[in-house]
């Protein structure tokens, strides 16, 4: 206490005019979510695996110079070697090229399916939630009826009616009832957001319903929708795989992971590698999407935010 000079005890004028200042760095919602996702090693690994898979489905079929549909009777059922990295199938086609070509179809179905069902689901669920009451009641009963139809029946019916088994009809038949889950999710979330006081504040300000939906309701359910999309994609890929496996999927010479596995199944005991590679890809994709979805949910959940 002794060594303090007396002039230190002069009053310092208070400066309150400048208002409050902020001590912490700025952190937006998406920035914050990304920061949290980055710390999640499993999710980051999943992203890397998925990116690699997607890149390979784009460039993979052209990598070793063998086309996925060239038949070479002199090289049937070869084991993996330096020329045919994943071996060849019973018609002598290069499995490496075929796996990535198949991956293209599977990925397209997964991503396209998820996008379509998100768009339909968001619009449908959003309308039901915003208007509420009778509109909501009727729209949700319709969803319940649609959801109760097994999709296998829809797929078979569609392929009979359209007489085609192309990629387009497959996506059509899968999304025809697939959007219902998303619509339910969006409706539930929006109903919750609608109760919030900031929606009432916007209404007292005279903001139009359209603006309330686009500026308040959608941004506030977006995080949860993104998580749902990452869980939807593997769902579609698996559905396609299953359909192809039972022969309702894409037709040769085009192929998908399910179709590859189905074809390989007959020779499985003698040539297990033909089954192994497409199955590995299916497993990797499904697992990565699911783990990424988990990571995203943790990152985007506002309750865990600090």
């Amino acid at each position, binding site marked *: *206490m002794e060594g*303090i000079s*007396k*002039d*230190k*005890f*002069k*009053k*310092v004028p*208070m400066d*309150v005019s400048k208002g*409050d200042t902020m*001590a*912490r*760095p700025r*952190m937006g919602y998406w920035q*914050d979510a990304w*920061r*949290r996702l980055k710390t999640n090693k499993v999710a980051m690994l999943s992203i890397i695996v998925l990116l690699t898979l997607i890149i390979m489905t784009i460039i993979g079929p052209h990598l070793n110079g063998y086309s996925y549909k060239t038949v070479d009777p002199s090289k049937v059922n070869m084991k993996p070697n330096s020329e045919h990295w994943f071996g060849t199938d019973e018609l002598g086609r290069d499995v490496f090229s075929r796996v990535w070509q198949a991956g293209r179809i599977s990925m397209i179905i997964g991503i396209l399916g998820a996008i379509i069902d998100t768009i339909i689901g968001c619009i449908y669920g959003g309308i039901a939630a915003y208007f509420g009451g009778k509109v909501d009641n009727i729209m949700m009963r319709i969803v319940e009826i649609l959801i109760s139809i097994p999709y296998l029946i829809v797929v078979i019916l569609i392929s009979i009616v359209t007489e085609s088994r192309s990629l387009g009809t497959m996506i059509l038949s899968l999304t025809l009832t697939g959007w219902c889950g998303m619509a339910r999710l969006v409706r539930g979330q929006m109903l919750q957001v609608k109760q919030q006081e900031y929606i009432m504040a916007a209404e007292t300000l005279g903001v139009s319903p359209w603006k309330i939906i686009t500026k308040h309701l959608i941004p506030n359910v977006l995080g949860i929708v993104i998580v749902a999309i990452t869980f939807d994609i593997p769902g579609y890929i698996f559905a396609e795989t299953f359909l192809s496996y039972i022969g309702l999927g894409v037709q040769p010479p085009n192929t998908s992971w399910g179709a590859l596995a189905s074809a390989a199944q007959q020779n499985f005991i003698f040539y297990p590698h033909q089954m192994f590679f497409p199955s590995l890809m299916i497993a990797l994709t499904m697992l990565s999407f699911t783990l990424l979805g988990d990571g995203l949910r943790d990152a985007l959940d506002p309750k865990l935010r*600090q």
Partner: protein
Amino acid sequence: MVEKILEVKNLQVSFHTYAGEVRAVRGIDFDLDKGETLALVGESGCGKTVTAKAIMRLLKVPPAEIKKGSEIIFNGEDVLKMSKKRLSSFRGEDISMIFQDPMTSLNPTMTIGNQIMESLKIHKKLNKKEAEKEAIKLLELVNIPNAKERIKSFPHQLSGGMRQRVMIAIALSCNPKILIADEPTTALDVTIQAQILDLLKELKKEFETAIILVTHDLGVVANFADKIQVMYAGQVVERGTRDEIFYNSMHPYTWALLSSVPRLNTKGKEELYALGGTPPDLILPLKGCPFSSRCEHCMEICLEEKPEITKLSDTHSLSCWLQHPYAPKTERPAVLRGERDE
């Protein structure tokens, strides 16, 4: 000689967040005597709830961290070194806590009777029949009418005041020596608040429980506490008995807290005394006195060095540079002095 039952020494708690380390509690010491009521008063974020939770060892580690050198001693036993097993009997039998929001601290799917009986069965090893009898007795103790019927109701069937009574009954079920009440009346209406405070007072007399009351409301403290500890930015800035704090406080922050409460004897629409600014962000290192940026009496020294503790009496002490002999004489604000003569 009064019996000390709790000693907190140099308690430091930090939280690790993305932006860095938030030092929520920055070295506080205090004692609690048997049967005494100590109030921790301060604004939100001043570390009062963190202190309470640290005593119960309820903080999640990580992100929280109780720094080395901190000591919490209950009856000669270091709480920070307790084993898991000892801890579970410690919470409940020796110390228990009631929270601000009774709705979130009760399990909505269990009847209140079962929730009270649960802790009786675990800690007192009673069988079902005895526990039920005891539960009814407890509910009667906290003035819940029709206790026999009420033990079958679920939390959502009760009003806020009733739920808080149930929480108190649960907290008292094993006769703890210390009860920590974290803003127990903040969520309640004034008339209910008065009822709950009266109830706590009665129970305190009956069981000789020591109470640590965490609150931001000095009105609540005035008729309830024996000792008061004013906290700011993770530190204790002033402590004293109730009368010392209300009638003889010397710290500008205590003055500010006391004067910002509206008095019923003022004429309407006068400007209230209001503290400018907001408390410092605890992520920053604090240089000097933590209150200096909002203090009317701020001096150069306050910005540079942390004030030392000045003892005014055995019970009354504070950390403020105004107590230094070189400092200009500063009087208590007029609002507070006026009241003293009344």
